[in-house]
């Protein structure tokens, strides 16, 4: 045993750390909203544009809020999983359409009047759901993204689990995978619905 062997020992420690690190997800940022009441909002419904919805309407139920937009590529990845989920599970899934027109880089918002943005947003969202299937009990439209700010939307898609008392119990950033749904969301829903 010579003193140079200690360098190897140090390196082995580093490797062990990196190996553990591979199993962790640095993006798994705990949301400050977990454990807090769901932020209040009143937004127009996609199916009936003249009607509005607010979280109070969901009081007493365990529900999921999924943030999506037609321009969001990763939403397409998780969408079939949501469609499948909505067929099986008895938990209402509410869609929050986030910045349908503004979030898409292809439009010059400086030139677009507000009513045109509205029209276009409804058109695009409906078309997208018709194409890919509609897993949502209902979708609300957050055209300017202000409700998104209240939720601290970090990247679309995002999914929130909200309990009967209207408290956010979990937040998932990024597309939902079968793994996340099976191992995290479903057990939590079962527990909350007990």
């Amino acid at each position: 045993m010579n003193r140079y062997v200690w360098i190897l020992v140090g390196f082995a420690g580093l490797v062990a750390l990196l190996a553990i690190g591979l199993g962790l997800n640095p993006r798994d940022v705990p949301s400050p909203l977990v454990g807090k009441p769901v932020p209040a909002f009143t937004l127009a419904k996609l199916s009936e544009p003249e009607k509005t919805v607010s979280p109070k309407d969901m009081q007493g139920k365990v529900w999921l809020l999924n943030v999506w937009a037609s321009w969001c590529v990763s939403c397409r990845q998780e969408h079939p999983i949501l469609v499948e989920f909505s067929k099986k599970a008895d938990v209402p899934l509410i869609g929050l359409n986030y910045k349908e027109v503004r979030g898409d880089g292809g439009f010059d918002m400086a030139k677009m009047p507000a009513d045109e943005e509205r029209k276009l947003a409804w058109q695009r969202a409906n078309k997208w759901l018709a194409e890919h299937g509609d897993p949502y009990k209902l979708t609300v439209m957050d055209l300017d993204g202000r409700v998104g700010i209240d939720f601290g939307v970090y990247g679309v898609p995002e999914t929130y689990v909200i309990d009967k008392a209207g408290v956010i119990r979990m937040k998932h950033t990024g597309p939902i995978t079968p793994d996340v749904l099976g191992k995290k969301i479903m057990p939590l829903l079962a527990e909350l619905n007990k």
Partner: protein
Amino acid sequence: MIPELGHFALILAALVAAVLGTLPLIGAHTRRMAWVALARPAATAIALLITFSFACLTQAFVANDFSVAYVANHSNSLLPIQYRIAGVWGGHEGSLLLWILMLSWWAFLVAMLSRHLPDAMVARVLGTLGLVAFGFLLFILLTSNPFERMLPGAEEGRDLNPLLQDPGLIIHPPLLYMGYVGFSVAYAFAVAALLSGQLDAAWARWSRPWTTAAWIFLTLGIAMGSWWAYYELGWGGWWFWDPVENASFMPWLAGTALIHSLAVTEKRGSFKNWTVLLAISAFSLSLLGTFLVRSGVLTSVHAFATDPTRGVFILIFLVAVIGSSLALFAWRAPKVGLGGRFGLVSRESALLTNNVLLVVACATVLLGTLYPLLIDALGAGKISVGPPYFNAVFVPVMIPILFLIGVGPFARWKEASIPEIARALKWALAAGIIVAVALPLIYGQWSALTALGLFFAGWIVASGVLNFAERVRQTRAGRSIVATAFSQPRSFVGMHIAHIGVAVFVVGVTMVSSFQDEKDVKLAPGESVDVAGYHFTFHGVKAVEGPNYVAAQGVFDLSVDGKFVRKMNPEKRNYHSSAMPMTEAAIDAGLLRDVYVSLGEPIDRDKPEGEWAVRVYYKPFVDWIWGGCVLMALGGLLAMLDRRYRVRSRAAAIVPAGSQQA
């Protein structure tokens, strides 16, 4: 068809690398000259195959072949041609291909420029590079094939990340990778020396120019990245201590220590173990950087989409390359002699101290970079380590280094005398104090840290000039002063230029952090804002259209003392392919200051003709930061081109092994 050819060439290259990584090494050990002779042709073949493969991928980009998945994900038919070419290394797969391309070129250069080295040594060096290349090619072929087809092909590509659509992208990664990968040559020389047991001055002399070359590229690459962040991100910052920046900075610190340590090993035969360990470390840190960036274990602005299988593969590769060389080191190092003795006050001591400090600095950066991972791994929560940590631990370590830069060149090898050094440096001390007092007075504000930074800048420049003058006086022998000055060895001139580069860099950092000014304001058309005597008048925004984006372009007039200087047009760009708006700052650059304006958001989204959030900066001496880096690289270039490395005599090879050992 062409992408398949590129893929095939990569597979062939991997096979040749497997041959290069085994037969010449065995041949050198068992003295089979036929196997030894394989090394050069094999290295040449790998370079040709990989260059061909890279050309194939470039062709797919230029021809908009969206049936290649990588092209479809990183290009677009509207993308201008220069970004289509740079897009080749705009994503994970292609940047790995660039990495291996650089490695193959380095190996090819070693094969070409090593005629004066013993064949067995060349075989060991190229064989080691062959093993590294084999592992990397395997990584590309098994987990990250850039030629993968997507059938049916996409009609249109997803476009290159708008952040990367900038001239900076064309230059930054190739420079950085040349540096990263270049340390593989120093590493291969070290491994070859350990394998042969010939760790001597000749070995140090061979590996010095290669190490310096890699260091030059890394220096320029890091500086380029920093400059790019400064003008592209629109935050006015030039260094963020982001994990990926740290990943490039750690090999730089180790490489800088290595360059200095090699000098001692070459001249005095000392520090051999140190030098070898640093050579292994510099390249290991490059690989670690690759791991941190590619595996996604750390969050960073640079992270590409990540894939855990890639992380596992790189980790195995890391263990194989670093682990085996450290094991080899631990086995051989105890038998290496100590080299020439030296006194407590001597150039050796100064360089040893410098080395220790650089390694400590490198370790603090490593600790800060990996600490969030460690805390997460222990289940203790999520934290991030930011600039306050790095500034607090890094700056104090740098201060003695800056002091030693002035002292080192005056210290004699073996035994120096403090009174002699002090006499020589009293004028440098005076120069430092004058700069430290005068400049802050001109800028109207004095603080201890500002004065300290400026003092060291004056100290380094003055001591360099004094040292140069003294050398000219000593070597003059009747010639004119000018002729003597121009006939000094390039490595000596290069050393001083690089050190003055450090001083210039320090001035930039000190001045910008002490006297910069910024204002965040709301401006309606016709209104204006002043920062540090610069007067910006806002004339509203207009819509402009680029090839693949639309932008709101701000129109500003810059004036000083009522005199119009120039128009400035910062932009807010919306790329068709991305939801994220990009800021293009407008910068008026100057020798003594930059002024910088960047456009935020309109205050009322529906009224872009109204008020806008605007940010203006005054950045004194900021360009000195990158100017200093360019000087450092220039100094390195001169040192590398020193005549003694080009003397084609076999003198270096004839020095019997171990003759330098005391």
